[in-house]
């Protein structure tokens, strides 16, 4: 019989793990949610954008480490990797919007969904062709230190993942609430047909939204690479679907909702695995999600579609 104290440490340990996992889901699902909010389409390539972002991060980290590891402190290399990767990955997002979705703006939504899946496959095979099937390993960007706080094990990597993810989301929230581009995004999620009448070009706001989603996903990829250093071209598939689920659960276009749902998903997954055999984890976790959606079909913060689809 475990003592209450032990149970509590066990709980805290899982809480930390859940926060880490939730951080990935939250940041990635925001990219899904924003695109859906602004353009009313699910970018099914988003998981693979995350994957490509991780590879870009891998490339940049490797280059920077090779060039500067002996002269610059580790944290500058880390920040350099994040900034450069974010910048480059944003262009992947822009590319996906311009080449993949823009020509389909007035096509039925199903065409866009199929295109998204197709883009994902192109990215997967593209990486496979360029880098081969061998699994690459993400270089550590900081020396891992483990702290033992009253029996709860905490690594500096975990803490960093949780904090950086939070900072990213706070920065995004600021951008959405305080800048004119963020305002335009909010307006688009309410009534995208009326937005051009304000002199706002949809051809600026749409790629910007994709760029932000891809940029965020790529940072998440770098962090992911610190926690799980193995890269593989299909790594984006499962995590992409999970982020999609979190976006749905959060409610159409709601950034707050997507973040919250991302964390919730992390919690459910981790805690289900502490009670049930891990092979049943996803089955049980997603049954819970299904149950929630049955009672809240619009998710946590889903707006009603206010857009009349003609002007």
């Amino acid at each position: 019989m475990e003592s209450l104290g032990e149970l509590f440490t066990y709980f805290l340990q899982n809480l930390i793990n859940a926060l880490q996992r939730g951080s990935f889901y939250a940041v990635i699902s925001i990219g899904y949610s924003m695109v859906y909010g602004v353009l009313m389409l699910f970018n099914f390539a988003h998981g693979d954008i995350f994957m490509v972002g991780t590879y870009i991060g891998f490339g940049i980290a490797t280059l920077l480490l090779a060039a500067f590891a002996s002269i610059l402190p580790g944290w500058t290399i880390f920040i350099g990797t994040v900034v450069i990767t974010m910048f480059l990955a944003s262009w992947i997002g822009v590319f996906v919007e311009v080449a993949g979705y823009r020509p389909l703006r007035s096509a039925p939504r199903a065409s866009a969904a199929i295109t998204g899946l197709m883009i994902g496959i192109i990215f997967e095979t593209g990486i496979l062709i360029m880098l081969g099937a061998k699994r690459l390993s993400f270089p550590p960007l900081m020396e891992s230190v483990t702290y033992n706080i009253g029996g709860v094990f905490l690594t500096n990597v975990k803490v960093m993942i949780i904090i950086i993810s939070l900072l990213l989301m706070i920065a995004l929230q600021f951008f959405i609430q305080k800048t004119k581009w963020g305002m335009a995004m909010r307006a688009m999620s309410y009534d995208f047909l009326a937005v051009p009448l304000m002199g706002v070009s949809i051809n600026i706001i749409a790629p910007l939204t994709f760029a932000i989603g891809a940029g965020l996903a790529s940072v998440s990829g770098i962090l992911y690479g610190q926690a799980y250093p193995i890269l593989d071209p299909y790594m984006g598939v499962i995590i992409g679907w999970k982020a999609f689920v979190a976006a749905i659960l959060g409610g159409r276009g709601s950034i707050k909702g997507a973040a919250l749902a991302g964390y919730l998903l992390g919690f459910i997954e981790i805690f289900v695995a502490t009670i049930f055999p891990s092979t049943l984890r996803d089955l049980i976790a997603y049954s819970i999600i299904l149950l929630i959606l049955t009672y809240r079909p619009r998710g946590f913060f889903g707006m009603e579609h206010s857009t009349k689809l003609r002007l």
Partner: protein
Amino acid sequence: MQLKVENLEVSYGNIKALHGVSFSVDAGEIVTIIGANGAGKSTTLRAISRMVPSAPGSVLEFNGQDILKYSADKVVAKLGISHVPEGRRIFGNLTVTENLTLACFARKDTDQIAKDLKWVFDLFGRLEERKDQLAGTLSGGEQQMLAVGRAFMSGRKIMLLDEPSMGLAPLLMLDMFDALKEINKTGTTILLVEQNARLALKFAQRGYVIENGTLVLEGKASDLLDDPEVKKAYLGA
């Protein structure tokens, strides 16, 4: 002539909504197009603001420039054509002030923006009282004021108005038209589309009557008010 529309044809799928509409508006004028439901009033405005494509052969010119070369957002930002759409279409999830500032998205004249904002708030005192309120919580009349104020902020040369009287109580309606007069006095041309023909013809200098996608009558607004056919069909007398 500021706005020239010639042989404008618009179709929605297989349905032809406009069959070669031609008219013109001079700078500073107030012109109205009246017509029954489904006659093609809104479609005419949407074609000018490039929200719907027009058929080849249609001519749309503004100050001698080919409107068809511009996309919808550039029509606002570069040509100064603003459009108050049917049903207001304000952004309910943004505050009143945000709605008004979003309309300045492409503008760079920061000083003038501040002056214009003040001007709009002076014109519609109710908006100023509610400036930090979400636009979705405004009453219908206030939303209409916001839609007009927003259009004023977005482009200054001509304002296309789609039934600004819709859903307003008679007194508010008169206030609204007084406000439009004030906007016109700043030098903004007004092209007004209305079902409320009497009101529109009293307000405008010239008018056109549209039926089934074709202009059937035109003239001085006061003459149209006295026209027996207009009286019979649109003034209920």
